[in-house]
């Protein structure tokens, strides 16, 4: 496959903080429609990688390309989103003083320019879509409540909902099931699986059961670089991965 | 009460009377002449006083110097009851400690309203200074001699030159010797011997004094008829070189002085900002009453001075802890009654503390009136440290620079080294979690705010030495202090230090060029531009946590 066909292509990324290398010459790529799981010890650099892709952190060296010919490193956060990258943060961040509904409305795909948002109205289809997502994330009953009144797990869901509204080509999902009950985890995996195919999805998670339930290709990061790659079984059997990550 | 003490004094007064009677008999004719001339001072006009002083010095009496110095320093009085003239130890005290002008021995004391001061005016003081200088040449104190020589070199007549020559022969102090030789060289320039003049120019070229430079520059002038004032071309050449060299040195020293001005302005800025760096920078309270807390400190200085008029010298040292306590307690009071309900709502603190600032202003206006209060600069803080003829540093500024550094180091130490410092930082970052870790957040909050407020009070003590002590004192500094804190990076003490200092120095470097107003505007614009480059100040908080805001 040529590089052009990749959805996301990271090459030789290095990020250091005060001399500490959070990413160390990291290279990886994501195919269109692929669901990629990234695992790795705490501090391996998973979140940092997402920061680089979304423009939050600028790497010291390396390249990051998205779709056909978007150089992520030269784009602003807003441009990256406009190009089709969506993200769920590790620490759930929703707009605390907007209602659940408004949180979703803002995430709604479509115009982002100042003058257009001034005139934007919610079309019936969009309204339906929001209601649908509200159902999916189990917050229909709380649609008019403020973001700040949600419990931790509910915020997680709202973030996922916002991601759905955005309908990006590439979804970066950082620890989606932290703090969820087994059943919710199950629902999340169904959700993510249904998204894959049309979207590229990158999931970071520490819950191995969850990862196993969705994983096709798995990449293991350690100390800022890839140490193993392959399907779940292969990775789980890798002695290095067992040593630094899985344990016995 | 009063009658008792009067009664107690009677025997003393009698004794004194007896003593003075005996002394009258012991007077020599010289004493008598002296006393009668002295007596004329009582009624004379200012211009007459000058000639009386001249006659006094001609009596050659041994007390002349002391009496004239006293006149110069407003310490010469006469007693209303018997018109007798006395020197007093310190002016404006009550009662006055008297010194007999003849014997120069203590002569008891007298209530101030029973004595009348013998006044002076500008021109009289000018004459007196010259006269006293002649006498001071023999003083045991080298500094006094130095001043005397300097004073004398401003008007060099034959008599003065002779006196200086005589002194040079016996003078041991090298500084004084140098000053005398400069004075003599200056007088030589008027002479006819061109070799001697050349020699004098050489001597003078080492000096950096403006007077010397002006005198040398005169050699280069042309008289109205087109000829040079100085006939000898060689002397002219030497003089031109000397003038140039003096100018160069003077420019150099004045640059150093400007730098010092900058640092001293900077330390004032730092001092007014440190307290805010705590209340605002660390605790996040937009403390609009910060200025008023400084004002309280300044008023405390005033009150302390009023309470101990006899010890002005140490009053400032007493005022520092007192101001810390007063402002600190006010801070604790504010925190306990208002601020504590507003954590997590920083903008509300702006509103409430603004209200407090109005209350405090009006409070001092009610107590102390709207008028400024006079805070005295103690002797040890006034005057300047003269490094050479071109460079002097004023003591009060010097002390303030040092003081600022001391306060700053103390605060840094508290924050970095003490338990309280750690607790303060923890509470300011996450109050709920700090509680869960067993920190008594309420106490820490009160202490922190009190500390910031107390430091503001201490800054007020320093300000009382520089500017008006009035109800508006705080208003004039509040904006500056916020700028310093923000420029340095909120929450970073070192930032406030470097920020304040660099703002001060920039301001002062620019001021001679473009004037005070434009310099200030420039500093403000520079601040705005700087923030564009570093949106979180000089020393921004770093790392992930800082970004997630």
């Amino acid at each position, binding site marked *: 496959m040529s590089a052009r066909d990749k959805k996301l292509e990271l090459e030789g990324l290095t990020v250091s903080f005060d001399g500490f290398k959070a990413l160390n010459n990291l290279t990886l790529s994501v195919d269109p429609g692929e669901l990629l799981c990234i695992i790795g010890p705490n501090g391996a650099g998973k979140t940092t990688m997402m920061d680089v892709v979304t423009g939050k952190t600028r790497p010291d060296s390396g390249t990051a390309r998205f779709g056909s010919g978007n150089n992520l490193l030269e784009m602003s956060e807003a441009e990256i989103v406009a190009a089709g990258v969506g993200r769920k943060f*590790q620490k759930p961040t929703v707009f605390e003083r907007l209602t659940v509904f408004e949180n979703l409305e803002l995430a709604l795909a479509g115009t982002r320019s100042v003058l257009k948002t001034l005139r934007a109205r919610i079309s019936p289809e969009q309204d339906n879509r929001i209601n649908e997502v509200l159902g999916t994330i189990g917050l229909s009953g709380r649609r008019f409540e403020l973001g700040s009144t949600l419990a931790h797990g509910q915020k997680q869901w709202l973030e996922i909902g916002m991601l759905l509204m955005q309908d990006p080509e590439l979804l970066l999902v950082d620890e989606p099931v932290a703090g969820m009950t087994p059943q919710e985890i199950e629902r999340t995996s169904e959700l993510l699986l249904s998204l894959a195919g049309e979207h590229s999805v990158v999931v970071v998670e520490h819950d191995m059961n969850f990862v196993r339930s969705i994983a096709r290709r798995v990449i293991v990061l350690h100390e800022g670089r890839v140490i193993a790659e392959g399907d779940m079984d292969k990775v789980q059997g890798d002695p290095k991965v067992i040593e630094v990550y899985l344990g016995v | 009460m009063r009658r008792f003490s009067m009664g107690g004094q009677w025997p003393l007064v009698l004794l004194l009377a007896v003593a003075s009677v005996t002394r009258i008999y012991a007077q020599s004719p010289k004493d008598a002449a002296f006393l009668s001339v002295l007596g004329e001072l009582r009624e004379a006009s200012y211009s007459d006083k000058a000639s009386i002083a001249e006659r006094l010095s001609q009596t050659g009496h041994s007390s002349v110097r002391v009496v004239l110095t006293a006149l110069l320093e407003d310490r010469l009085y006469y007693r209303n009851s018997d018109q007798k003239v006395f020197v007093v130890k310190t002016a404006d005290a009550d009662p006055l400690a008297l010194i007999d002008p003849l014997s120069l021995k203590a002569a008891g004391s007298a209530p101030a309203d029973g004595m009348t001061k013998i006044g002076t005016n500008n021109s009289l003081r000018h004459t007196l200074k010259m006269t006293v200088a002649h006498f001071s040449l023999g003083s045991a104190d080298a500094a006094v001699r130095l001043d005397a020589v300097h004073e004398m070199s401003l008007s060099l007549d034959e008599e003065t030159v002779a006196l200086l020559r005589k002194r040079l022969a016996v003078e041991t102090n090298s500084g004084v010797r140098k000053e005398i030789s400069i004075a003599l060289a200056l007088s030589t320039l008027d002479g006819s011997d061109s070799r001697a003049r050349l020699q004098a120019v050489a001597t003078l070229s080492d000096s950096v004094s403006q007077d010397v430079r002006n005198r040398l520059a005169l050699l280069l002038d042309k008289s109205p008829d087109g000829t040079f004032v100085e006939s000898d071309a060689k002397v002219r050449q030497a003089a031109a070189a000397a003038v140039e060299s003096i100018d160069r040195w003077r420019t150099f020293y004045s640059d150093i002085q400007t730098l010092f001005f900058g640092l001293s302005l900077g330390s004032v800025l730092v001092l007014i900002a440190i307290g805010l760096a705590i209340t605002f920078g660390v605790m996040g309270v937009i403390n609009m009453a910060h200025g008023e807390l400084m004002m309280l400190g300044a008023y405390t200085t005033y009150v302390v001075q009023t309470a101990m008029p006899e010890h002005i010298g140490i009053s400032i040292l007493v005022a520092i802890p007192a101001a810390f306590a007063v402002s600190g307690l006010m801070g604790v009071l504010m925190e306990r009654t208002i601020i504590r309900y507003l954590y997590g709502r920083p903008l509300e603190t702006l509103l409430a503390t603004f209200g407090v600032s109005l209350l405090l202003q009006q409070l001092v206006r009610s107590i102390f009136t709207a008028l400024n209060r006079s805070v005295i600069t103690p002797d040890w803080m006034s005057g300047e440290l003269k490094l050479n003829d071109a460079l002097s540093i004023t003591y009060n500024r010097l002390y303030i620079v040092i003081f600022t550094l001391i306060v700053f180091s103390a605060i840094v130490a508290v924050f970095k080294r003490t338990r309280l410092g750690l607790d303060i930082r923890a509470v300011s970052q996450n109050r709920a979690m700090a509680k869960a870790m067993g920190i008594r957040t309420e106490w820490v909050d009160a202490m922190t705010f009190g500390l910031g407020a107390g430091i503001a009070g201490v800054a007020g003590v320093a300000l009382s030495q520089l500017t008006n002590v009035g109800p508006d004192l705080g208003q004039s500094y509040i904006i500056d202090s916020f700028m310093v804190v923000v420029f340095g990076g909120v929450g970073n003490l070192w930032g406030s230090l470097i920020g304040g200092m660099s703002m001060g120095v920039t301001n002062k470097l620019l001021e001679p060029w473009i004037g005070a107003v434009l310099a200030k505007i420039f500093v403000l614009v520079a601040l705005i531009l700087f923030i564009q480059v570093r949106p979180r100040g000089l020393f921004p908080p770093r790392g992930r946590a800082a970004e997630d805001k």
Partner: protein
Amino acid sequence: MSMLTVNAVNHFYGGSHTLWDVDLTVPAGSRMCLMGRNGMGKTTLLRCIMGLQPVRSGGIAFDGTDLVKCAAEQRARLGIGYVPQGREIFSQLTVEENLRIGLGIRKNGARNIPERIFSLFPVLKKMLNRRGGDLSGGQQQQLAIGRALVLEPTLLILDEPTEGIQPNIVHEIGDIILRLNKEEGLTVLLVEQKLPFARRVASEFCVLDKGRRVAAGPIGELTDEVVRAHLSV
């Protein structure tokens, strides 16, 4: 003897009633696991115990002391360690300073961070001088647990301690909890969603549903029915 007793606690966020007459008894030396779906009030209950949320009515007693009357900071001094949900690290303090915070109230006046913390979480030793806020999510979680342990508490409260932590360390945390419980008699109250972990670590359980206690008992009684009834959506 019970170490912690929660008695008919009611709690409100403004107008919304979050906890309804909740009872909870944590016997000394036990490992109680509080369970429930998202938003059911687990965190709220823990915050009430810590004094970070005021209770409307009801009683909370710890070791015979009435906690409701105690200021929040007093409770830590009584020997309750708290690992909150979301870590709540002091982000601008270094790792070392984060750990030192707890030293201030230790009765024995210890001046140094117990070495034990570092043997439990070696990564903290490596990062002593890094700002807490810069750590990765999992590292912060370890720091949060370490920070609570510095207090040498008799009751350790953990709110979803394994969230975001790599599997081998999750396992280790389980071990640590068990070990501290066994060797030092530490009583543990934790919130946990992951059933395998809960079953492995806890000795009792209690389920909250919509702010009410709906089930409780020894961990063995946490049957699939209970799970289906109260823990699935």
